[in-house]
């Protein structure tokens, strides 16, 4: 059933792509996101209370009474201390499942906040790497304004040991090899994002709305049915797609992500390569490296790491058949 809809949408977009600009597409997605979010909020008719047991920075347990489907782990941190609000990137619910800091809690539970200087910050590191890929997508789509039309494709699951994070996209610029100054211009855009202190918002939407939201992006339209089939094979109960928003920019991702752009320290876009793929033809691979503000590094060491990040990352190329990549 979805595939027939897909074909309809596909024929519809091929007419429109040439007329739409990048900014119009961004606004279209942001508008649908806001409408869906306000609709979901209206569904809550009566505010119910839940009990949340939170572990604060001195490992003492505090009992808080919060609102169901409204209050987030970030709100819980606001009751305790400023340090927890600033540093905690993720929350651990009931000691098992990871939770976004800005996603409302569903049931009464116990909470623990995670940050970059924990004893084992494995999950926080992955979330940071993933959100940096997400920000690369934001940069590519906004940096060229309306001059060059950009088709965003996808990003692979985070791999820190490879030394760089990636976003694959089709830039539609012929024979462009970016100079150092052009890359630096892209990196400077991130420092503006950091100053704005934008929060990552998460929302779960139905596939129909997702198709409507990404109807101008031919790659994402193909990916949505594939993501759904993977979720079915993994027997996840809800048939929904999770979407993240940063400022006006919206993208598909399974998550979890860090809480806000304030946590980003140094960020550098290191290189852009041309790669050949089976399904999408020739597309571009954008690479970068970053370090959270909580961790410090000497600039000499950072430059060495940036040199390594400027080499071609051999991560999986985007294909529709590759399940690992799609479930990211």
């Amino acid at each position, binding site marked *: 059933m979805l595939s027939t809809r897909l074909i309809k949408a596909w024929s519809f977009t091929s007419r429109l792509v040439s007329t739409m600009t990048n900014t119009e597409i961004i606004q279209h997605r942001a508008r649908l996101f806001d409408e869906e979010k306000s609709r979901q909020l209206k569904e809550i008719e009566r505010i119910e209370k839940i009990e949340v047991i939170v572990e604060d920075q001195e490992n003492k347990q505090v009992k808080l009474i919060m609102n169901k489907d409204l209050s987030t782990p970030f709100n819980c941190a606001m009751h305790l201390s400023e340090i927890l609000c600033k540093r905690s990137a993720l929350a651990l619910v009931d000691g098992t499942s990871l939770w976004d800091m800005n996603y409302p809690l569903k049931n009464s539970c116990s909470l623990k906040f995670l940050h*970059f200087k924990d004893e084992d*910050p494995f999950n926080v590191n992955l979330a940071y790497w993933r959100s940096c890929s997400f920000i690369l997508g934001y940069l590519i789509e906004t940096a060229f304004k309306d001059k060059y039309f950009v088709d965003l494709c996808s990003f692979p699951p985070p791999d820190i040991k490879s030394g760089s994070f990636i976003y694959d996209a089709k830039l539609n610029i012929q024979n462009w090899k970016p100079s150092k100054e052009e890359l630096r211009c892209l990196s400077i855009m991130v420092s503006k994002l950091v100053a704005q202190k934008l929060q990552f918002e998460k929302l779960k939407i139905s596939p129909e709305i997702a198709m409507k939201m990404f109807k101008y992006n031919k790659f994402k339209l193909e990916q949505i049915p594939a993501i759904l089939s993977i979720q079915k094979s993994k027997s996840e109960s809800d048939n929904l797609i999770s979407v993240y928003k940063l400022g006006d920019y919206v993208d598909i991702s399974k998550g979890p992500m860090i809480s806000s752009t304030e946590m980003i320290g140094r960020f550098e876009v290191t290189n852009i390569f041309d790669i050949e793929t089976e399904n999408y033809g020739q597309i571009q691979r954008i690479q970068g*490296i970053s370090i959270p503000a909580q961790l410090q590094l000497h600039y000499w060491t950072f430059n060495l790491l940036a040199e390594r990040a400027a080499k071609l990352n051999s991560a999986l190329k985007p294909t529709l058949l590759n399940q690992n990549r799609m479930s990211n």
Partner: protein
Amino acid sequence: MSNLTAGKLLIPYSRLARKKITKFTGPQGRIDKIRGIISDLLRLERIEIPNFVGYESRQYAERLIDLAKKYGDKHEGMMEMADYWIIEKDLIPKLFQVIVPRYENKLGPYTQVFKLPEEYPGKGIKNICMELKDNALPPIQAAMSNRTHNNSLTNILIDAYKKDYKFRTEQNKFN
């Protein structure tokens, strides 16, 4: 024969660091402070003090024990020295009868120092814990946590860079 004179233990220490102690009380005040700390250290064997006084008086304590080992308690200049630097006089026999035999077969520093965390919220004073080695108190190392930072994001990146660099250099050798 005695080239030891009380009040003159020659310790090299930077003038800027000394200024911190002499700021309000002058040179005599500084010496009084150090004498107090040496007496405290000999009596309690483990003390907690701000680092700018601690590091300086540590050197005086080391030198005093060194000289006591060298000359013993039947040396006129040495006794004068001990009388000057130790304020509480009941500690002078302890220096020669307890502490000197303890370090008889040992070289090198007789004290050790541990940095303490800054108090928050506080005035930002950095404290240290100073102790005589081989004391009878429960050891500090057992209470210290032995956590590592191998899993932090920056260290993972640096380790991966090192591996990559080794791999590249070995490849160049064969070529």
